[in-house]
């Protein structure tokens, strides 16, 4: 039988980094032209897993449109026990 009452531990979250207007401009985004009514606060940078593996995206949160989508680490956020091993 159940010996103790069960609990649900606090979960883990993927942080979504804020993006500045300057960073958006560097990515070629013209807010007035491309996302009328939006500000830099409507964009976030975070990793996603999709077709082709992991990407670091900068995405407009209301429309899910990516303004940047660059390949990220091969295994994404997973770190192997052997990562960093130098056998030379």
């Amino acid at each position, binding site marked *: 039988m159940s010996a103790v009452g069960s609990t649900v*531990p606090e979960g883990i*979250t*993927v942080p979504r980094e804020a993006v500045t207007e300057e960073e958006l401009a560097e990515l070629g985004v013209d807010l007035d032209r491309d996302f009328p009514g939006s500000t830099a606060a409507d964009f976030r940078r975070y990793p996603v*897993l*999709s*077709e082709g593996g992991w990407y670091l995206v900068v995405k407009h949160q209301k429309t*899910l449109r990516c303004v940047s989508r660059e390949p990220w680490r091969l295994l994404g*956020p*997973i770190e192997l*026990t052997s990562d960093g091993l130098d056998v030379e």
Partner: protein
Amino acid sequence: MTEATALKDLDDAAFEARYASDRFTASVLSNRMRYIVQHMCTGLLNNAFSLILRDWYDFAATISGPPEQNYPMASVSNSLAMFLGTMSEAVRNTIEEYGPENLRPGDVIICNDPYRAGNHVNDICFIRPVFHNDRLVSFVNLRAHQLDMGGVVPAGFSGTKRNVYENGLVIAPMLLYRDNKPVKSSFNLIFDNARFCELLLPDIKTIYQNLLLGEQLILESIDRYGVDAYLGALRYATDTSAESMSRAIAEIPDGVYEAEEGIDCDGIDDSIEYRIKLKITKVGDRMELDFSGTSPQARTSINAGILDTKTAVGVALKFLIDSESPFTSGTYRPIDIVIPAGTFISATPPDGAVFLYWESTGPVLLAVFRALEKALGRRAVGGDYGSLNIHNANGVLPDGTPWVTTAQCGGEHGPWGATEAGDADSYSVMYQANNLDPATEAIESEVPAVVLRKEYAIDSAGAGTNRGGAAVLKDTLYLTEAEHWSSPLHVKKASGIGVYGGKSGALGATWVFDPDYYNVPQKKELIPTSDEVYEGSTPVAGMLDPKTKAVDPNGEYFYFARNPVWHTKPHAVFRYLTNGGGGWGSPLDREPERVCRDVRDEYVSIEGAYEHYGVVIKGDPHNDPENLQIDYEATERRRAELRAQQPAAN
């Protein structure tokens, strides 16, 4: 992003420019790739030696494109879906780490690391690079379960292993064949760690032969249609899946959809429940699934890897909205998954041991089902039995020969949920799998066990306009002493959720009947299925009445791993009762004649028909099943009474 109508709207010149062939040739090559992977699977199924491949079909074949295309997985076999979502990354991650520049004709590369390649350590990826005129043009791949991969549990299936060291041998990307010759050091690595090697060796040789078959068929295709057309067809095959999924997503109303699901506990104790939080954001033809807020990884091997979660997302969406197109890597093009590392559905080494990964990704699939239920309306699908209830046992025959049974004699097969199309099947494998059911004769010929019962449990199916599948009750008698790992991980809450007004399926449970309490060979009678029989049993898992030990959703939880290993005397019986499948639509809208047929077939009792469906039936279903009578007037009154009791929303 692929435009939704791009492919059919391309004129001949545009199609030729994009895919280096005409439309007809690209279709022929795509179909031929599907033929190739099926042919590889048939070859392995017909010639495998171990029960897990021969009787379970625990393998899958795929074809991937070359590195410059980023390894698109263009073709998948009609087999274990749990392998298909992981394979595209498995091939890419394995080859990128090994170095594509280090490959040459005649190689086979292997990897079984759950964190690099998904699934569990027994599921080795065998990857064969295909060269055409010294150019690397493709990979043919088989992921196939090996009967054992070392670790503390023979055959491996256990939710009680605490880390990667207990879990089994981890193989980083390495050569298994070079110049079409076995690399002895690699074979030694496996065979110095794994048990049952007399079965593993012929299995691996059979796998190798079927890789050669796949390679040969690809090269024949290239010789016939040209390498550019072949490379174009790899992209065409994934583009069709991507377009199909985009179109399906576009049909869902834009919005944010959330759900929670979970798993009962891990293998340390039952102090922690693990919970998935899912937030789906859907805009236009794109979808983002965010698993932020999900519980940290478990302390034992009930965890899943991040690629297993990716599979569950893909399978759920294929089930719900896009079941027509092949499950290639293109399926994920309009989908972004946001998931932190270190949860129980994205475990990390060395402490986040991954073995019973489907037990944790089943709830991922169910969370997608729950989240989209309202948006889908009539297209919602009920939940399945939710846990493979996998049973792993071993012992020694009187002559000293060791035996093992794995996934044959637990509650591995059970019901699905109902859909708009009709009642659900009651005997299949869980939604993420697509396997066979080992034949009773095969089990009893190899294992000192007798399958006594394999039947449906009355009144266990979720009621609905379309009924969920019935729970499966299975009894197995073990003729020798044995040790058992039993893993029913979803007994606290219904997994067979009802949808569109349907009811959820009943809860399952597992018990052991010690021969001192009920000795089947001596009594020469099967153990009854009535509630009174459980009082003298030893519960393994379930929500049970603490005195009678019969299933009681309001009873006490019995924790599956309070005995990590169940030791039994000869003639003990394990009984598994799966969860029931979920119903679709209000049961009060089910035609009384269909309810009567269910009573005749003993899916539903006369009392259940009255209680859940409001249908009044008279007669003796067990002894005179063809002369049951529906009392239509009484049915109308009863249904009016039940409708009056329903909340206004219904």
